[in-house]
């Protein structure tokens, strides 16, 4: 009698995301056509992916906490999967503790990378006004506005104004004039 072997959890998770290679995808798909249990697991993984996708569209989420919760949920799911798997007609216990740990680690990386890539851009960046070695600049996100001076100028006086501006004063080597620049928000 031929024993039916289920694909690993990791393979099912990757299949759910469409991330398996062509041969593995064909083999897993062929198995899924005749295994209701694995179909349910794939559906569960797909549901989880949809949930992650929807959550990622919400700005200002505590991503670290969410990742930790996701990791805990995956572990719980795998534990539950282990319970179901005991009732299957398996000859060999293929999903050992070591394999489960590797699968969990792999899935955690996949979820973490997914969360990172799906994290909405355009979150609010802090506006910072600072004097640098060659000028003053105000920056926020991907925008910067600054006044510069020749990096070789040694005697530069800085002045900060608590209303939100920084000024500098130096003798410009091109004109020989005292030049005062100011950048504010």
């Amino acid at each position, binding site marked *: 009698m031929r024993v039916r072997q289920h694909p690993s959890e990791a393979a099912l998770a990757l299949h759910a995301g469409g991330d398996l290679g062509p041969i593995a995808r064909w083999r897993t798909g062929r198995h899924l056509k005749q295994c209701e249990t694995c179909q349910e697991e794939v559906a569960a993984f797909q549901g989880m992916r949809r949930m992650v*996708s929807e959550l*990622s*569209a*919400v*700005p200002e989420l505590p991503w670290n906490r969410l990742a930790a919760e996701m990791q805990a949920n995956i572990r719980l799911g795998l534990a539950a999967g282990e319970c179901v798997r005991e009732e299957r007609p398996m000859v060999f216990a293929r999903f050992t503790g070591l394999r489960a740990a590797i699968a969990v680690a792999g899935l955690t990386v996949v979820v973490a990378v*997914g969360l990172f*890539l*799906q994290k*909405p*851009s*355009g979150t609010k960046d*802090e*506006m*910072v*006004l*600072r*004097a*640098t070695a060659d*000028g003053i*600049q*105000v*920056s*926020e*996100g*991907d*925008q*910067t*506005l*600054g*006044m*510069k*001076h*020749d990096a070789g100028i040694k*005697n530069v*006086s*800085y*002045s*900060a*104004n*608590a*209303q*939100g*501006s*920084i000024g500098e*004063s*130096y*003798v*410009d080597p*091109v*004109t*020989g*004039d*005292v*030049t*005062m*620049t*100011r*950048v*504010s*928000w």
Partner: protein
Amino acid sequence: MVKNKNTPIRLLGVGVLSAAAAFAQETILPSTAIKINLPADSPVVLLTLDPRDSRFTARGAAIMVDLDALLTLRNTGSSRIHGITLRVVSQEVTMGGKASMCIPRLNIGPGESFPIHIVQHLVRPTASASGPLVEVSLDGVLFQDLSFYGPDQIHSRRDMIAWEMEAQRDRNYFKQVLALGGRARLQQAVLLEMARIQDRPQLDRPVMLRGPAATSAATVATERSERFAFVSFPDSPVEPVDGSAMVIGDQVSAPHVQVRNRSHVAVRHVEIGWLVKDQAGRQYLAASVPSSQPDLQLAAGKTAIFAQDTSMKISRKGQPLDIRGMTGFVSQVEFADGKVWVPSRQNLDETVLRSILPPSAEMVRLIELYRKGPDALIAELNKP
């Protein structure tokens, strides 16, 4: 809400942008990318615009503009120009930052021309690239008699008059030394100023954050309110009464100061110099705290409180400063009639401020002249 469902496309975009960054090219900025806005009745006209080494670089999803331009302006008015302030803006930078440059202590007669060297750095998203990359506008011109021309959008009138008064103060000091002690005493006085500038205790370059200082579990235990002590000048038209600021870790935040107008005329602007003291008792100039109300009208004998919602990192030689005290002093007052008061040289000499405050722009200019030779300085001081 931003929704990024298609990760592969996003990754492809990252790849394309990375490739663009790898092949980023610097392009010389044409003079047409710089727009000079001078009003029709301006007392100065543009003679030449030399973009010098100006260039822009497309790097990934951003454009970097490095402006290094030399303008030549001519005084077309009938008065001598003693200062000019230009606003240097990019309309495409949406965050609202403002940049300006001022050349104080010019002495440009009618018909004479003078150069202005503008060096600016700008990074902006390519998505908003349209129109001139940089616009230079006139904010104000200060004449010899302290009259003013210009829209004054960034209060350049008040600043230039204050600098002009500081300049007259320091210039008159050297003139007096020269008149009373001759060349030898002048040299001695200049060397003393140079040593003072050299030894002046300074903080690291300023860093400011918009809004109150962020607290964390690590800093909340050290968060405290620190009260100002004040240095009073007998002839100051305004006296500081009370004030404090929050000290949170290496940041000082939210200063507020109460002042009283002890003069007989209304005041429309006050600035308080803000010193911080370290563990060893050394004092450093941290910032100035200006009156926050743009339309302040502080009548004679009245008091007002002004506050600012800004945080500053205070460090020295890369280490957070252990702030053990704060001192305030009135550094500038503008009266309702537009006249400006600044501390006298005597005010500074009689307090610790002389050794703490930075030199005025005029002092720096006169010392630069002295470096060329004492005769250059003496010739300058002998000018009417």
